């Protein structure tokens, strides 16, 4: 092969993928159980918003994520809430002035059911419903009167997931187990309630300029999420998560945003919750 993987990160993922696929499945899925995730990461956005101007902006933000993840034999619940803060500038080679403040946030909830499995539980496929919300509050410090800008997409749609349970050589004998996992999600919203600035001002007459329910055509939203799961000896999990999100709204003004997020997360099993059935959890006592 003549081609090369240039970045260390992509080389790493490539090696992990190749090694994972050669190992045997464990009797129980690595993903099963209740987990409380906490992750820190980096958020990079490239967006264009005709409300601001025709030129793209690039922002970089620090970001944190919390959530709740539950997976049982045949279904899984995923709730992730993330938010951060960062700065940005015009996406021009000559522009170094970081005059854009950015507060990105997102909320993801999905309920998926197992639809197929192969090779025991080594490969499992899930499909279900999705609520994917993307929100940005931005301030252009060079602007005087219309410096603030809120863009929010509160979307619903379909969600699919693939999970790989595998084992690999243990390089860190005591700290981690030999169990690894890989999860790959595709989230496809089909409708969205969109909040956007007005044609010339953020909130004409005290209300959002655009607050409408839109379907594909006027909006487009796609989200991918992949995670490498490493089981630690103490029951926790480390997850390296990569999230990619693209949003387009073509109403009043064109708005397009591509978002990359890379997280390193610690997933702590919630043993108290694990002991309860899902329906018990719904009627949980205050002591839980």
């Amino acid at each position, binding site marked *: 092969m003549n081609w090369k993987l240039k970045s260390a990160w992509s080389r790493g993922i490539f090696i992990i993928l190749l090694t994972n696929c050669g190992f045997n499945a464990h009797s129980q899925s690595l993903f099963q159980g209740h987990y409380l995730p906490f992750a820190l990461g980096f958020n990079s956005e490239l967006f264009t918003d005709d409300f601001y101007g025709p030129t793209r902006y690039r922002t970089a933000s620090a970001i944190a994520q919390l959530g709740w993840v539950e997976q049982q034999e045949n279904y899984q619940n995923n709730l992730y809430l993330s938010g951060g803060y960062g700065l940005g500038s015009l996406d021009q080679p000559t522009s170094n002035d970081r005059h854009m403040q950015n507060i990105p946030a997102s909320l993801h909830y999905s309920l998926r059911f197992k639809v197929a499995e192969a090779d025991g539980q080594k490969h499992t496929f899930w499909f279900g419903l999705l609520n994917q919300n993307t929100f940005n509050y931005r301030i*252009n410090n060079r602007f005087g009167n219309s410096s603030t800008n809120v863009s929010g997409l509160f979307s619903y749609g379909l969600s699919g997931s693939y999970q790989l349970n595998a084992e690999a050589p243990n390089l860190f004998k005591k700290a981690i187990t030999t169990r690894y996992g890989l999860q790959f999600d595709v989230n496809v919203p089909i409708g969205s309630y969109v909040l956007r600035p007005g044609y010339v001002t953020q909130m004409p007459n005290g209300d959002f300029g655009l607050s409408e329910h839109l379907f594909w055509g006027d909006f487009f939203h796609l989200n991918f999420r*992949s995670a490498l799961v490493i089981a630690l000896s103490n029951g926790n999990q480390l997850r390296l998560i990569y999230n990619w999100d693209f949003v387009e709204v073509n109403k009043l003004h064109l708005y397009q945003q*591509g978002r*990359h997020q890379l997280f390193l997360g610690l997933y702590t099993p919630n043993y108290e919750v694990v002991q309860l059935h899902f329906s018990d959890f719904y009627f949980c006592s205050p002591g839980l």
Partner: protein
Amino acid sequence: MKWFNCIFLTFIFVALGCERGLVRENPANTPQNNFDILWKTLDERYPFFELKNLNWDSVYQVYAPQVTNQMQDTALFALMADMLFTLRDGHVNLSSEFDLSRNWQWYLDYPENFNYSIIERNYLGDNYKIAGGMRYTILPGNIGYIYYGSFSSSLNTDNLDFVFTFLSQTRGLIFDIRNNGGGSLNNAYRIAERLRPGDAKSWLRIYKNGPGKQDFTPPTQLELNGNNNLKGYNGRVVLLTNRKTYSAANTLAGILYDNPNCLQLGDRTGGGGGIPADFQLPNGWVLRFSGSRDITNSGLDFEQGIPPTHPLDLDTAALAQGRDNLIESAKDLF
């Protein structure tokens, strides 16, 4: 599962770089393109072409041929500034790292009609009070006087309660907003609520909502709190204005325009009736422009300036004697 590896790897590599393909390319950062985008932005978003009887296409025909891609930034800026000058709008500016374009003829072409030194020395005196940016006192003859030079000052409910309680027993109020270039619209609204608080004060506002010249939102009737319980001024009010009464101060005059108990004395206000918005050009320069229109119920657009009910210029002879004849004439209206 090699097929899956292929798909996954494809996804990783595509996702890492594909947003550059999905998010629209930057327009070329050339003088010609910056000029065209500036013109087109105003063509689609500026609300006053019809009111000002301005043919924006003709303006393009005059200025566009002068643009070349070999122009220096300063020359391009000067050309753009000249084009923006034709809009005759103090809310239209182009800001770069080296200059701010402006049209300030809305007051430079007219008499100043204001001398703060005379007001401070001969009317406010030594014992005037200051609250929320308002300088106020009671003039001889039991007439309340407030000078409010900027709506950028912080102004809260306690300030307003105190000021209007202090002046409540006077037999008339002179509210002087000459040389007030504006600031927070909320300050204008809060003050308007306190002047004749029982009287209805309403006006119309429309926003541009599309690229067509007639693309506006339906008119919204804006109405201020007609709450009699507010501590406000119930007597007659005389507003003093000059050409440098602009933007939010102009809005205050516009809100009170249809009120028979609020008189306006002095010169027409300077205008600035549109709420400004901003836009960034590919070269980073920021355009500010008006994005809305405020209109009185009787059909007067705030952008044209609010005409006084009692037109009067400052008398230089009286000024030489230390008297402001606008204040003196206002006293006669109570």
